[in-house]
């Protein structure tokens, strides 16, 4: 009796004491954003290709304009509903006349477990409701003594008990939600004003859980000499926050990112009510584990008497991560406008658009028709190495310039190549290959590398490997110096099963102590290496030999 009495007085003291603190800084919530701008940056550690919707490693710069009315005094101005991937350290708040005293972001959100923690920390009164199997509910006032490690211990005038360990339906009702926690991710700033003002405040911050990639669709003309390139920007928002009616920009190019780990938002936990050991005399010892078989229609949840209460539900954050993003929205074909942003490229989505939570969205990047290409079959060889027949790779090569109907920066991304099979009424457009593109500046050589079919094959046979003793004489102008260890001849064969001639390019990767001294054909040079450019006639094969020397 006396204990209960003392608590009530203490509680009164608390309320009176906390009043002046509340007057010190008044909580004030800024309006919902009246304008939002979202600039999406791609994963800085991905050099080419696309992204994984369930693991978005890019980020975005979000700039929100909000309205606020401030009365004289000190205020804790709250911006509710920021992205849950917010990097709090990057937040910038402008538009407050007297500036910002401090900025805060709490990582913890309001949740059942947060209520228990707050009730425990403040020793606030809670109401315990207990319902017996016959449906009669009794209520008892008490305090929560501990919510540690998922178990709840409470005290009532009866004594000390543990929540939901009796087998009776038990719950706690909280007096108030004085947790100081928000329901949504929130950033708050402390500011002080001397007179009433109406301000338009801009909040900008970087947020994780975004990404974008370029997706190119390339269609080869029937004669194989030209292609049409269509490009999409695919951007995705993996956050739980949507940005309605936003100005959307995309930035291409690789940026340095050095921020490291951020404290993720804690979506809280359910009240787990873990109990003491619950073994019974009917328990099978652990090592002998027999999976229970349930009859059809049996719901183990409803009938299992002992175990299910202790089973933790999946935390909210986990459940969220498991939900898939299968929402791909295509927004028309008005093209994004490109401009330079320092040494990066910025693309502006033409109309305002909603970047919804857990959504991927596509915007047209470019359309270039009739880009002339050369189709080259490519292979890299090491001398002194016998390889059996292998299909050669296909490169569709063009130049990123105006003469080729391109001449625009091409951000890295995935490329799908389509070709038309058959002709006339039976012709179909089919996927011929998939590849990726790196960031290509204007005037760069542009190559789409595809895996070739079986029609064009290459084989190299090392025909002889001799120790030159005495050293061989000069070979075709090249002097073989003394100290040569091996003198090798490799035979290269290229076969073409196509009914048209093909261009083949064979690069020879020489080690530092190797030299090419003679060949049936004159090699050109590319990237510092000899390259044989060979035309293989329709349905024929071509062979040539080259000689290399290896020094000690």
């Amino acid at each position, binding site marked *: 009796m006396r204990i209960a009495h003392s608590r009530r007085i203490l509680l009164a003291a608390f309320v009176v004491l906390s009043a002046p603190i509340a007057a010190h800084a008044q909580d004030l919530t800024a309006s919902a954003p009246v304008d939002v701008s979202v600039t999406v940056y791609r994963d800085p550690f991905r050099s080419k290709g696309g992204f994984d919707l369930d693991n978005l490693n890019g980020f975005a710069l979000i700039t929100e304009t909000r309205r606020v009315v401030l009365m004289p005094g000190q205020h804790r101005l709250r911006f509710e509903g920021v992205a849950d991937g917010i990097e709090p*350290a990057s937040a910038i708040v402008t538009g407050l006349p007297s500036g910002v005293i401090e900025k805060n972001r709490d990582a913890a959100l309001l949740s059942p477990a947060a209520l228990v923690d707050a009730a425990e920390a403040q020793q606030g009164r809670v109401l315990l409701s207990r319902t017996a199997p016959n449906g009669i509910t009794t209520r008892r006032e008490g305090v929560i003594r501990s919510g540690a490690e998922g178990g709840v211990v409470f005290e009532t005038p009866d004594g000390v008990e543990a929540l939901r360990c009796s087998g009776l339906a038990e719950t706690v009702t909280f007096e108030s939600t004085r947790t100081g926690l928000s329901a949504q991710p929130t950033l708050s700033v402390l500011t002080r004003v001397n007179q009433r003002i109406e301000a338009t405040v801009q909040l900008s911050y970087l947020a994780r859980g975004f990404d974008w990639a370029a997706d190119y669709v390339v269609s080869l003309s029937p004669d194989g000499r030209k292609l049409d390139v269509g490009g999409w920007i695919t951007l995705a928002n993996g956050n739980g926050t949507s940005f309605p009616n936003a100005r959307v920009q995309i930035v291409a190019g690789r940026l340095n990112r050095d921020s490291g780990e951020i404290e993720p938002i804690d979506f809280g936990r359910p009240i787990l009510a873990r109990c003491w050991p*619950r073994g019974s005399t009917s328990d099978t010892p652990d090592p002998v584990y027999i999976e229970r078989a349930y009859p059809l229609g049996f719901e183990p949840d409803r009938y299992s008497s002992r175990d299910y209460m202790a089973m933790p539900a999946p935390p909210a954050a986990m459940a969220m991560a498991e939900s898939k993003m299968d929402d791909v929205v295509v927004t028309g074909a008005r093209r994004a406008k490109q401009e330079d942003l*320092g*040494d*990066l490229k910025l693309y502006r989505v033409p109309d305002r658009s909603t970047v919804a939570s857990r959504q991927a969205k596509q915007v047209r990047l470019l359309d270039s028709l009739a880009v002339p290409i050369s189709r080259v079959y490519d292979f890299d060889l090491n001398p002194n190495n016998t390889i059996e027949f292998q299909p050669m790779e296909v490169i569709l090569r063009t130049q990123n310039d105006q003469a080729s109907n391109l001449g625009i*920066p091409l951000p890295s991304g995935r490329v799908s190549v389509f070709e038309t099979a058959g002709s006339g009424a039976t012709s179909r457009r089919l996927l011929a290959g998939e590849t990726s593109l790196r960031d290509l500046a204007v*005037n760069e050589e542009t190559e789409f590398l595809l895996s070739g079919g079986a029609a064009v094959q290459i084989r190299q046979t090392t025909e002889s490997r001799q120790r030159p003793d005495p050293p061989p004489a000069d070979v075709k102008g090249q002097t073989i110096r003394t100290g040569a260890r091996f003198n090798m001849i490799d035979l290269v064969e290229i076969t073409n099963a196509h009914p048209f001639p093909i261009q083949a390019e064979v690069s020879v990767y020489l080690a530092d102590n190797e030299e090419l001294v003679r060949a049936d054909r004159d090699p050109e040079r590319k990237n510092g290496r000899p390259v044989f450019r060979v035309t293989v006639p329709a349905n024929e094969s071509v062979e040539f030999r080259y000689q290399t020397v290896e020094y000690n």
Partner: protein
Amino acid sequence: MSIRTILAASCALVALQSAPPAFAQDKALAITIYADDLALVQDKRPVDVTGGRQRIEFAGVSAQIRPETVSLSANGVTIVEQNFDFDLLTPAKLMEKAVGSVVTIVRVNPATGEETREQAEVLATNNGVVLKIGERIEVLRDDGLPVRVIFDKVPENLRSRPTLSVTVDGDRRGSRPATLSYLTSGLGWRADYVALFDDASSKIDVQGWVTLTNSSGTTYDNADTTLVAGSPLRAGGGYQGSQYGRPQRPQLVTAGTETGDRERLGDFYLYPLAERTTIANMQTKQVSFLDVHGVPAKNGYEFRNYWMGTQEEPQSAKTVYRFATGSADGLGDQLPAGVLRFYMRDKQGDPQFIGESTIDHTPMGSTLSVSTGDAFDVKVKPVVEKRERLSSRRWRTTMNYTLSNASPRAVTVALQQDGLWGDTRIQSETMRSTRPNADMAEWQVNVPANGTAELTVVFDSSY
């Protein structure tokens, strides 16, 4: 009734209820946070000394306290022992500690709701609770029927959160100020800089914020907070290295020799916060410390070839910004370590993020060269044209570098060839080089707008 009276009344009643005196609300916290997950907490509050031996409990200390660093000082008080109880109060622990003692069990009749009370002794809690009721031995809730267990009290050293208690010997009765100080991890800070680069005037506006993070499990109310720029920790391991195994590009071009007017602690600068602040658990807090406008900054390009090798595809040069931290034409302050984020206005005038970089503690008067990322339009392609073996320990390498610039303005690229190990001399070059160190040669190559430039160099290396 005044607040004071109520408080006094409630305190008196609390004292009756539990033996160790609880502290009053008017404690004064002072926190000094170092840059590497270390903080010194000084907790000043009046303590009621009873005279003789007594236990004083400090609730609300950091959950990540380093108990060996705790010290309590108060006049006329001798410390007998200090305990840090980290056994948490959970239902399982409550039952475990009840082994050998008597609890009340309440059986509830499922049909009528009628309660039957019995006294039971807890015998064991191993994989199930074994009770002795009278002369019977029973397993708690073996039949699955509802049974409440009521404990008389919570065992003394079980807490809802880790708690520090100190047993002291006081000379006389009375209230007096005491200071508790300890080190804790879970509190840290670093600087965050926002730099807005203006392309037209080649100037930056820089704002600096200190960013405090608290993951120590405790909220520090109304604390007087000081930040120390530097890490006093020498004990224990730790390594410094770049993320990718490559040497980090040096950012500090010249180390400054100017002294700032901030308060110092030994070799470290102090950043006291202007106002007392509450550092909540799981909170990230930022307070401004620097705001400078119109500092000259130079935008340039840098490319480093790490060894004398060929790049199959052209590689982007790095975008680099260079600025000073001195009082003349610079930021005019020493910079605590942190992340520097660069922004630039787009064609519509909105600031957009263009990259970031960490910087180390930087003295005032330094010159910094900070890279923000890759330049989309400026690329370099190094190619080994020829590698000749002159003898078993001597090689001649002919390198060709093609620099391309797709932007509509001329640029200068600082082209660096690293990996010049051994005695490597430049036999010939189409442009004059400098040699920043024995391992590296550097050329300042001008690349015209929408054009290319070539550089050919022959290296003669003896190993």
